[in-house]
């Protein structure tokens, strides 16, 4: 029992406008973040027959289809010496970090409506807790990735050290968009319907099933400008299996966009979160 004098005083006041993140408070709720993330993991494959195998199968199957469509039918193989399935699979892994984080974060507020309206915690913990599941998926996919690399005899090289950089940038970008989407979904459920249309659209607009090299040189600048995810996926693949690296300017540009999106997303979220309990 702490002494009377040691009780911490909290003052509640109405807030207005834009507010920053209370990092000290977030830190004090770190256990909740861990518990929520592990809840998502535990629930993930309850009552499924194949369980964690789905994590392995999903990107493998998706990569299989992509390499058939782009590698065999469209015959884009000529642009590289590397085996096409490995290209698609590496692209798919990077894409999944972005796509699944975005989809999961956008749903997390509405999916936890009961929590939001009955108990207090920093709301931003919910979107962040979804990252755990995505990261575990990625960790599990390292197994088939290693298999693919062994089969096609691709070794790790120095660019592999940059893998965390691509992942962090992809996460920042998807979290930024996801935070804004999550906050908007609370008031407008339209977002739930729009995202599943937009996200696959962007997958085809990104170098997942093909290399950015196959984009005609005259369009390539515009391509990297319009789609800031592209250079990050290219970078991930370069680090993983040694395809051509993305142009440096495009990476810098994407990094700036990623930081901006994360800040903007968090700001929108913080601004809208005070209405969550009343509206959700």
């Amino acid at each position, binding site marked *: *029992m702490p002494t009377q004098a040691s009780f911490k005083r909290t003052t509640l006041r109405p807030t207005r406008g834009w507010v920053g993140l209370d990092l000290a408070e977030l830190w004090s709720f770190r256990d909740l973040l861990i518990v929520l993330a592990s809840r998502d993991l535990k629930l993930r494959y309850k009552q499924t027959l194949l369980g964690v195998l789905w994590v392995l199968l999903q990107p493998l199957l998706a990569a299989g289809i992509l390499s058939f469509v782009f590698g065999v039918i469209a015959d884009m193989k000529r642009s590289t010496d590397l085996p096409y399935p490995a290209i698609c699979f590496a692209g798919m892994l990077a894409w999944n970090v972005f796509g699944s984080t975005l989809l999961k974060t956008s749903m997390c507020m509405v999916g936890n409506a009961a*929590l939001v309206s009955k*108990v207090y*915690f920093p709301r931003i913990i919910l979107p962040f807790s979804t990252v755990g599941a995505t990261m575990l998926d990625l960790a599990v996919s390292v197994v088939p990735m290693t298999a693919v690399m062994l089969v096609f005899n691709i070794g790790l090289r120095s660019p592999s050290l940059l893998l965390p950089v691509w992942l962090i940038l992809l996460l920042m970008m998807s979290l930024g968009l996801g935070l804004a989407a999550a906050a908007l979904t609370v008031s407008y459920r*339209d977002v739930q319907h729009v995202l599943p249309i937009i996200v696959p659209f962007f997958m085809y607009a990104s170098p997942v099933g093909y290399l950015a090299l196959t984009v005609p040189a005259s369009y390539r600048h515009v391509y990297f400008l319009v789609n800031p995810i592209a250079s990050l996926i290219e970078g991930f693949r370069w680090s993983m299996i040694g395809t051509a690296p993305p142009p440096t300017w495009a990476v810098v540009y994407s990094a700036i966009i990623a930081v901006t999106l994360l800040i903007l997303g968090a700001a929108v979220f913080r601004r809208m979160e005070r209405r969550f309990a009343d509206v959700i």
Partner: protein
Amino acid sequence: MSSDIAISVRGLAKAYTIRQAAHSATTLSEEMTNQFRHLMRRDKNEIFWALKDVSFEVNKGQVVGIIGHNGAGKSTLLKILSRITEMTDGEVDLYGRVGSLLEVGTGFHQELTGRENIFLNGAILGMTRGEIRQHFDAIVDFAGVEKFIDTPVKRYSSGMYVRLAFAVAAHLRSEILIVDEVLAVGDIEFQKKCMDKMKDVSTDGRTILFVSHNMHSIHALCTRVLVLDQGSTAYIGSPAAAIERYTQSFKTRQVTATAERPESARRGSGEYRFVYVQPVKQHFEPAEPKRFAYRVERRRGSLGRFYLSAQLFNETGLELAQMDGRLVGRWNQDADAVGGELVIRTPWLKPGNYRLDTSICTASGIVDMFEGAAHFQVGSVLPYPHTASATATALGAVFGDFDWRPDARLTVQAAPYEETVQSGTSFVE
């Protein structure tokens, strides 16, 4: 001096914007059409003050009850103090960690085991994993679910579920505990256990804020009581005085509702109106039929068929029964006036004050909503052949018409009811 204060609330206010039902947007396209309509002609969004200028202080170690009619702002106050929603104006100081329990089992997940849910729920309520581990055995013991701790809670009976949920909350080590009406769950024995636990908590020097409709537990637990009325503090003081004040306000509300509200202020389309609903006596005994004479008159137009309905409330605002004319086949045809008698034979009512709301309805909607149409009192002649101590009638909202008849034939096949884990069946709502 200020070190004795646990909660200080100054000028607290909370406004909700109510949009006309037809204009509240839940999709973007609706919102856009609304915004467009806004430009065309200024729709007024009604502002509703759920709380207005509420100020009070709570000292450390006090158990403060909050009572008030439905819609008086009790839940809003708790939600603001537990930081779920933000206030519109004012300031609140909280000294110490705040734990709030607005619902039993917030965040419990059906698919997870009892053990997993203890950690999940504990973390949601603000405990660290270390604290939960430390209290784990005590929680399981308090809930009495040792055997099923690794079973998914979807296989729990509702009793076990509630006990486990409350057990987690009961071990919250926060200095301020905010509790909403959660004692209204579980069996009597468990309720008693919870009450004892809450008393322990307060003797620990921790502070409790507690909303309830149950005057019995308010009286038993609280050291001070705050009465809220239409979003403002109506009274703060000793439990006895506050409960008295609250019951008084219930009566004055009745009088204002009947006498001072003009017919035109009543809801409904207004083709017909109740002229009066008059109890045949001011004072009924618990088991006697309650009779009311009524008269309905036509004001304009015609309806074809319509029916009458009534709702009965006790003095805590609890809705006891609905008497819908359709259920007894009483349809009325258009006429200049309709009169008759409403008879309510059961339930047997407990001593106290009662209110009857009546309405005239058609299949398509409400014609007249007469709130507080009649008020009456019920006396204290018990409807039972024997008397017992006050504890025999302390619980429940109405009296039951019952008997405990012995029957030798049933003794033989008596299968004791036991609460067991049933596989494949969910008992949880």
